[in-house]
């Protein structure tokens, strides 16, 4: 059995973007069991922009699960943004999770926005000025919530959804100097404490698609500027050919194992 996940992040919606994704999104009920949104859904995090997201990503016929990103916090309207998205049927995760009954099994998704801090050997520490300690503790608390949410879910396939990156691999292409603002090893550490099958994130527009945590869990950067398509599709199952990438014919995605 296979669970099919579509994912994209960093769509930065406002009125000028509404309608651009919709034709591709309309295909989703035939191609995926759920759509995951990896944060930065809006430009500034206003309620009006959230209505654009709701219009574009609502009513798709499959569950839509999101985390917020840093852009979605810009105007300090997070409760209104979340309310607008949830009114449109979009589930917004922050330190919690959800389990979906899919034809291929139970899909568990745990999510947090996450935060920065950097990666092993070159990371910020909980030391010094209050501002620096607050910065690092924000990441620590977010990572702890992600770990707890991942471990709380009873499911067949477990996915971690964040905006910030849990590994440096998927930042390749970004300037090294800004890695501490793009993610944290603590998120990867949280993901490695649970039987996670896949970790999805956005945020790194100049990064690369594929990476792996130190514990061996696959990571994918689904930021829209990276994947350069409306969304990516991942099939998770225990009998798939890892080396095979399927093509899509005129009548939908071919299933090479059928």
């Amino acid at each position: 059995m296979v669970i099919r996940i579509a994912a994209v992040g960093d769509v930065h919606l406002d009125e000028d973007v509404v309608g651009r994704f919709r034709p591709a999104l309309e295909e989703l009920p035939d191609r995926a069991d759920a759509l995951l949104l990896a944060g930065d859904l809006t430009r500034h995090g206003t309620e009006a922009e959230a209505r654009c997201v709701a219009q574009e990503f609502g009513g798709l016929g499959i569950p839509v699960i999101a985390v917020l990103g840093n852009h979605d916090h810009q105007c300090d309207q997070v409760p209104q943004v979340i309310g607008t998205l949830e009114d449109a049927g979009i589930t917004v995760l922050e330190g919690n999770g959800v389990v979906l009954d899919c034809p291929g099994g139970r899909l568990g998704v745990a999510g947090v926005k996450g935060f920065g801090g950097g990666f092993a050997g070159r990371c910020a520490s909980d030391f010094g000025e209050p501002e620096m300690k607050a910065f690092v503790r924000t990441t620590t608390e977010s990572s702890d919530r992600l770990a707890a949410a991942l471990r709380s879910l009873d499911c067949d396939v477990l996915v971690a959804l964040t905006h910030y990156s849990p590994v440096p691999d998927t930042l390749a292409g970004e300037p090294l100097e800004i890695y501490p603002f793009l993610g944290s090893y603590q998120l990867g550490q949280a993901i490695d404490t649970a039987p996670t099958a896949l970790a999805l994130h956005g945020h790194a527009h100049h990064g690369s698609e594929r990476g792996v945590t130190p514990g061996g869990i696959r990571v994918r950067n689904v930021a829209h500027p990276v994947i350069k398509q409306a969304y990516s599709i991942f099939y998770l199952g225990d009998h798939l050919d890892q080396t095979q990438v399927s093509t899509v014919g005129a009548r939908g995605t071919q299933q090479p194992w059928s």
Partner: protein
Amino acid sequence: MTVYRDSGTGPPEEYVEAEIHRLLTEDPAVAEQGITVAHTERGLVLYGEVESAHRRDEILRRVAGRFPDVPITSDIGVIRTQAPTEIEQLP
């Protein structure tokens, strides 16, 4: 606007680059963090990708307005939004 001591030669390129990055992020009409500024013989070139043609045009308009004496060109693209033609299988 920052005033530089040596007004005859204008601000050093590094400061211009830093100001453009902050302008593009902090200006509510733009709010883009993914634009790269490159120095070339023909002036500054803006690289990156955005979600609409309107945003691409607005970026160039804002930067040119802020630095009217600096030759600036744009090589910013609009990200495609077609449905994927491939899937990735993850055993």
